[in-house]
């Protein structure tokens, strides 16, 4: 699993990357009440807006940690947005992207680097 400074995570299997937000982010946001997941087929560049996470009092943009095409969005979040709080780094995934530039993944932080980054905040 790799991480961004904006608290997105990405887990790659073959050429498909699953994306979500980290436990730290989910904790900071408070109760997640709604997730606006991207449409299947949408193409994103690294850093583009991918999704929006809503708590009661705020809406936070989630950025694509890698470039690619959305091949699946987590429909289960529609009925159960609380999944993001309960299991942010597994069941609370937002979207799966078919990677267009797999080398982008290497440049992201690994878990140790991300934890170190969190301790500076």
């Amino acid at each position, binding site marked *: 699993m790799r991480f961004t400074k904006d608290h997105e995570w990405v887990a790659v299997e073959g050429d498909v990357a699953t994306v979500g937000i980290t436990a730290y982010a989910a904790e900071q946001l408070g109760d997640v*009440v*709604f997730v606006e997941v991207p449409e299947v087929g949408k193409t994103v560049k690294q850093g583009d807006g991918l999704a929006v996470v*809503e708590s*009661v*009092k*705020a*809406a936070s943009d989630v950025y694509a940690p890698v470039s690619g095409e959305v091949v699946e969005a987590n429909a289960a979040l529609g009925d159960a947005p609380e999944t993001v709080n309960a299991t942010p780094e597994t069941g609370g995934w937002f979207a799966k992207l078919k990677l267009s530039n797999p080398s982008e993944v290497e440049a992201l932080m690994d878990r140790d680097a991300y934890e170190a980054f969190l301790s500076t905040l």
Partner: protein
Amino acid sequence: MRYLPLTPEDRAEMLGVIGVDSIDALFVDVPVSAQRSGTVDLPLHAGELEVEREMATLAKRNRAAGEGPFFCGAGAYRHHVPATVDHIIQRSEFLTSYTPYQPEIAQGTLQVLFEFQTQVAALTGMEVANASLYDGSTAAAEAVMMATRVTRRNKAVMSGGVHPHYVETVETLAHAAGVATHRLAVAIDAEDAVIAAIDADTACVVVQTPNVFGTATDVTRIAAAAQAAGALLIVVTTEVVSLGLLKSPGEMGADIVVAEGQSIGNGLNFGGPYVGLFACKEKYIRQAPGRLCGETVDADGRRGFVLTLSTREQHIRRDKATSNICTNSGLCALAFSIHMSLLGEVGLRRLAAINHEKARALRDALAGVPGVEILTPRFFNEFAVRLPGNAADMVETLAAHGIIAGVPFSRLDAKAGLDDVLLVAATETNLDIDITFFSKVLAKVIAQ
């Protein structure tokens, strides 16, 4: 001064606590060039007696609707509001309370909004409704913007029966936001002409029923055609009492319904404040503008109500909000809700039936006047007539006879070539003798 509690002693004491010599020290940040000593060039303060005198003088220069025969409609309608309504809305806790952002001490307002939303949804035949917008016309504009968000298309088609002032309001906002509008030619009975104008770019079609000429239309076919093309049907109603007798827009397939709620609970007030009703299909609710009140529980497990889905709104979403709207029409929505609670379905149906009866009587009386042609085929409490002459001039002449005869269509749209068309409305407040008097005087005026 009766509204200012501080005494000179208070002020001196407070300045001492703050640690400054005079009030001017607190205005030190104002540029010297902009500081004004003395008072602006306006009258000095006045007691209640003097204020009442001036206001009464101004009020007397207006001919109130209740002073004689009165037949104006065209988007605002004179109905009788039970005495209870005005008493309740003047209670301190309703009149002087704020937006219910602290729900623990605003359950009065919040429960009313929940009831209001339910009443509006039931009335319009839709799944959900919001806590009100400013008025029917701005609600129509908001509905068009919402349709562009939902469909991701950029054009609104408006029928030729939509109130011209509503069309202007929609166009003003839509064009500013880069949304194209296609307005069909003014027509008394052609709401479904919009069907032919739907294309791949159409976000919504906007039709009004009863329309500005009073024509009631079955919009079921229009709904089907719009939805088949991936567009939304927005239905506009300017006289909500009609929903006590006519099929609801929801029953006929509308995606969004906007209405002017003024007829229930709120007087004419020369055009405002009014109350915009906004209802839509539940699947679109996250794109809807305005406040929403929802049910929940408190820490003790008791049912309560809160403002919800706030991330749509400006105070959270700022430049990505569904609208810039900050207020709703709180007190007017309360008045609407109280009046609707008093009426109930039974009362609303009766009220609507009486309105329709009065309008039929008016139609029969005017149809009997030589030279007058009834133009509206199907109506609720308002219809259009063609006069043998300029309608606006005839209205002035009739006003000199003490009759407020209706609204000349040229007042709404001077370019439609309908200068001889008059819009007339009758409600439960019209007396039969007034209807007779109107037709008699009209006959005399025409004969001259």
